[in-house]
């Protein structure tokens, strides 16, 4: 048996398309998430450029109202569900097992299934442009507009597409929870976990508890549209506000799902580049948890203009103010981390510092929304657009860019170019502020969002033009990033195992890591365990490099190949590749397509039947297949 596995384990690192399609390796799945998310980032970015081009001047004629509506809706759906969530999933997939000293996630095949379901669902959402038009009810899909036009399948695509993406995300989250709670390396207690892992715990809980709520809303929308139910039918005393509640009970935690992993990444990078520990680890962790909890109690601040009544509005306004406290704690602790350090201003550090700076702006404008009367002026105006882009671009995207520069060496074994990286950072930062800072003013000056044209003479022309120029500059930044990736992938500097003098376990293994991650499962004694294997402190509390004696040195030298690694790798049973997850996910998406066209007669039922058969094949095959073939 040992011999069979010995051949099996390295052979799993095969090349070729088939090996990627059938892979259950968390690292490869992480890379596929990243690549898919980046492709959708380019598509969503292209849509943003179309939007900005249309709005560059008063009464723009680049897009019709009909096209504009589809494009801004798809821009929102794409960026939230097909870019930021999956890029977070990419980092989590790749690095959570490495950071907790595990060999894989708890359920490698569910992991593959979650990825393929996300990928095919997002592609499926884009097929809407070919078959009946893309969703055009805004990413919030407010009823009864979303149930008004049953002649078009556009909002059926929305309902089913979001449902499927939700299921994919749910599967991923359950996987992370099981992995983090049961598969940590010996000695890694909860309060020794890296902050990024902690933030993964929080976002996973947010997702498993919020996705089912919007799931109910999406079913109700689908039923109202296709089966004659009356959930949102005002003429039958159905309540359109029900949808808003269900949507935002999901939608607000979702905002934290998008930003918390980025906060986790920044909390990893700052200590490494400052060469001192995270300031107030426990405070940062608990404020992350507090943000998660409070995130469930503030949803109605998205509904301050909907007529909930002053008592409810006051309550939700105060709850929203409360969230500013743990958020502020995080920012102060990050600055505290840099204070007194020896800051290495590398590209990941620049992006992290940019994240803090921009997130402060997004956070402060967020506080102004909790001032209910003021929010009635800001709501659904460009001020809101500016606010959430400061959080989601200035915050989340810069955070994930920081992560990309920080962890690219671990993925590929090559460093990204620092010179190009700095160009990338400054172009992005300037372009971003040029795009979104003027939108605050536009909103306060009365420009509502989701409008495809505006008249001259309202004082909006100059700011809009500035914003459009900024968006092109961001696009230039993205091109620079692509160039950096291509260039560095080909002939970047070799990274070695530990290019940043890191603190966490992923840096103890080779770059890229072997299939089984660690030849020997590490035993953990501290937060930032790897650092303490390398450094002690002198009498004045300064870090002092230790001679390489302890267990750390052993794992650092691990050979990446695995074949000739001495001894321990032989008995590691890694799960075997499987093509059933991709088949099952294709089946599920086909069922979704059937639901979209359920009212179109035969085609809908044919797709449903086909989807059911394919899913059955996928899931039954999956159930009957042992995890590690040779092991049984």
């Amino acid at each position, binding site marked *: 048996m040992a011999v069979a596995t010995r051949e099996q384990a390295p052979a799993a690192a095969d090349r070729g398309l088939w090996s990627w399609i059938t892979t259950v390796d968390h690292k490869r799945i992480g890379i596929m998430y990243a690549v898919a998310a980046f492709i959708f980032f380019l598509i969503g970015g292209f849509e943003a450029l179309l939007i900005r081009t249309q709005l560059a001047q008063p009464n723009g004629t680049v897009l019709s109202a009909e096209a504009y509506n589809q494009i801004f809706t798809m821009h929102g759906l794409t960026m939230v569900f097909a870019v930021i969530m999956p890029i977070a999933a990419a980092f989590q997939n790749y690095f959570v097992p490495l950071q907790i000293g595990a060999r894989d996630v708890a359920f490698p095949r569910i992991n593959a299934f979650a990825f393929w379901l996300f990928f095919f669902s997002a592609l499926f959402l884009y097929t809407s442009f070919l078959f009946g038009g893309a969703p055009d009810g805004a990413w919030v899909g407010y009823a009864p507009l979303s149930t*008004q036009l049953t002649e078009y399948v556009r909002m059926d695509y929305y309902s089913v597409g979001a449902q499927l993406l939700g299921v994919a995300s749910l599967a991923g989250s359950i996987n992370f929870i099981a992995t983090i709670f049961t598969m940590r390396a010996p000695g890694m207690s909860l309060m020794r976990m890296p902050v990024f892992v902690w933030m993964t715990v929080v976002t996973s809980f947010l997702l498993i508890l919020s996705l089912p709520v919007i799931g109910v809303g999406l079913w109700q929308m689908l039923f109202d549209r296709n089966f004659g139910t009356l959930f949102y039918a005002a*003429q039958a005393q159905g309540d359109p506000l029900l949808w808003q509640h269900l949507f935002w009970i999901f939608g607000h935690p979702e905002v934290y799902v998008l930003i918390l992993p980025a906060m986790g990444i920044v909390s990893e990078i700052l200590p490494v580049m400052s060469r001192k520990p995270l300031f*107030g*680890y426990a405070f940062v962790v608990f404020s992350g948890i507090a943000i998660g909890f409070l995130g469930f109690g503030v949803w109605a601040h998205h509904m301050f203009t909907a007529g909930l009544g*002053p008592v409810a509005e006051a309550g939700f306004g105060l709850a929203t103010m409360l969230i*500013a406290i743990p958020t502020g704690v995080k920012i102060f602790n990050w600055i505290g981390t840099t204070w007194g350090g020896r800051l290495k201003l590398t590209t990941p550090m620049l992006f992290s510092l940019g994240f803090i700076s921009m997130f402060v702006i997004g956070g402060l404008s967020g506080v102004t929304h909790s001032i209910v009367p003021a929010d009635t002026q800001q709501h659904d105006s460009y001020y809101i657009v500016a606010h959430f882009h400061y959080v989601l671009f200035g915050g989340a995207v810069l955070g994930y860019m920081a992560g990309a520069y920080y962890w690219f060496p671990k993925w590929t074994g090559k460093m990204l170019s620092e010179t190009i990286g700095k160009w990338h950072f400054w172009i992005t930062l300037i372009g971003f502020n040029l795009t979104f800072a003027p939108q605050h003013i536009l909103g306060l000056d009365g420009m509502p969002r989701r409008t495809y044209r505006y008249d001259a003479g309202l*004082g909006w022309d100059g700011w809009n033009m500035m914003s459009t120029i900024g968006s092109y500059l961001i696009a230039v930044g993205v091109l620079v990033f692509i160039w950096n990736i291509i260039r560095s992938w080909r002939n970047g500097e070799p990274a070695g195992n530990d290019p940043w003098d890191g603190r966490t376990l992923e840096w103890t293994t080779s770059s890229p890591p072997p299939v089984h991650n660690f030849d020997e499962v590490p035993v953990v004694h501290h937060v930032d365990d790897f650092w303490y294997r390398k450094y002690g402190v002198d009498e004045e509390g300064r870090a002092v490099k230790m001679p390489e004696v302890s267990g750390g040195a052993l794992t650092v030298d691990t050979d990446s190949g695995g074949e000739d690694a001495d001894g321990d790798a032989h008995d590691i049973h890694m799960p075997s590749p499987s093509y059933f997850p991709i088949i099952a996910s294709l089946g599920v998406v086909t069922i979704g397509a059937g639901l979209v066209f359920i009212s179109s007669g035969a085609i809908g039922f044919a797709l449903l039947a086909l989807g059911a058969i394919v899913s059955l094949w996928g899931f039954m095959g999956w159930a009957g297949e042992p995890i590690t073939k040779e092991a049984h």
Partner: protein
Amino acid sequence: MRRIVSIVALGLVLASCSSNLPQSSLNPKSVEAQKIDGLWILVFSIATVIFFAVQIALIVSIVRWRRRPGDDSEPKQTHGNTRLEIVWTIIPAVILAVIAVPTLRTLFELRAPATGDVLRVKVTGHQWWWEFEYPDIVGPDGRPLITANELHIPAGRTTELEMTSADVIHSFWVPPLAGKRDLVPGLTTYIKITPLESAAGEVIPGQCAEYCWLGHADMRVKVHVDAPDDFETWAAGQLEPAPVPTTGAAVGGFETFSGVCATCHQANVRQPDGTVETIGTAIGPDLTHFASRDTFGAGILENTAEHLAAWIDDPSALKPMAPELNDLDRGRVLGMPDYGLDPDQIAELVELLESWK
């Protein structure tokens, strides 16, 4: 530090007070909007202070603690400072508590029902226009004042809008006069507006702020803040029925109106024999005093004969709508269809409508 803050704040306020920002929320022209603006300036000032404090702390830390070339010393390994962390948890909490007091006070003031001498206006949102009915201003025939897209309210007196929607959710937003409020089908929401005396004579633009599909960007509203006397004059004029013409091209226009337009539009008319009757169905805007409005098409077109002729000829060419999806049985109206009228009919109709002042 304080000076920077006040300069920035002042600059922003000045920039927005200029008269070329007619739709700005920073340019309040009602008692209610002033209250909101006061609250906004308070919060904005505090936020500006915090903004500079945090950004400066960050920049100072970067500049002071950046690693200099050739310096290989290691920093002191501090893990945190509980006292400091508690302090920077409590300080924001205190600041927020300070902001919360005026926030809640203003909120409850603004949301309290209007009292005293209040003008009530019922607002109904439609895809994609506004219907205004003044239930307390009633003509001798018992018909209340009904108009569309241009709201007239008196300066110095509180108007309470009672709002609902006929189809999807809309939001009434005239930033200089009030915060926005959604119009939700099946629900009634309220806005109070007490325009400043100094705003008398102004026409203040606003528009729908809740995405309502094709015509959302073109669902605009104009609020005429009238001096009290002017308002009375306007209201009296609006209560007058429109005359049914007896001579000229308008006679043919009225025939077309009765046969075609009345399918969806209403007008309160006085026949040549003196009888007053309401003709048509109230699906689209009331046209009794069409010519008294400055604009039409929900504020997107100046009310001129040329514009009106073009509109009647092909409405969807001027404003994206979807009349092909109209379904009156389900109460769904998505715009005015092109009835294929010939140029003569259009000219006669324009003649008629432009005479209904």
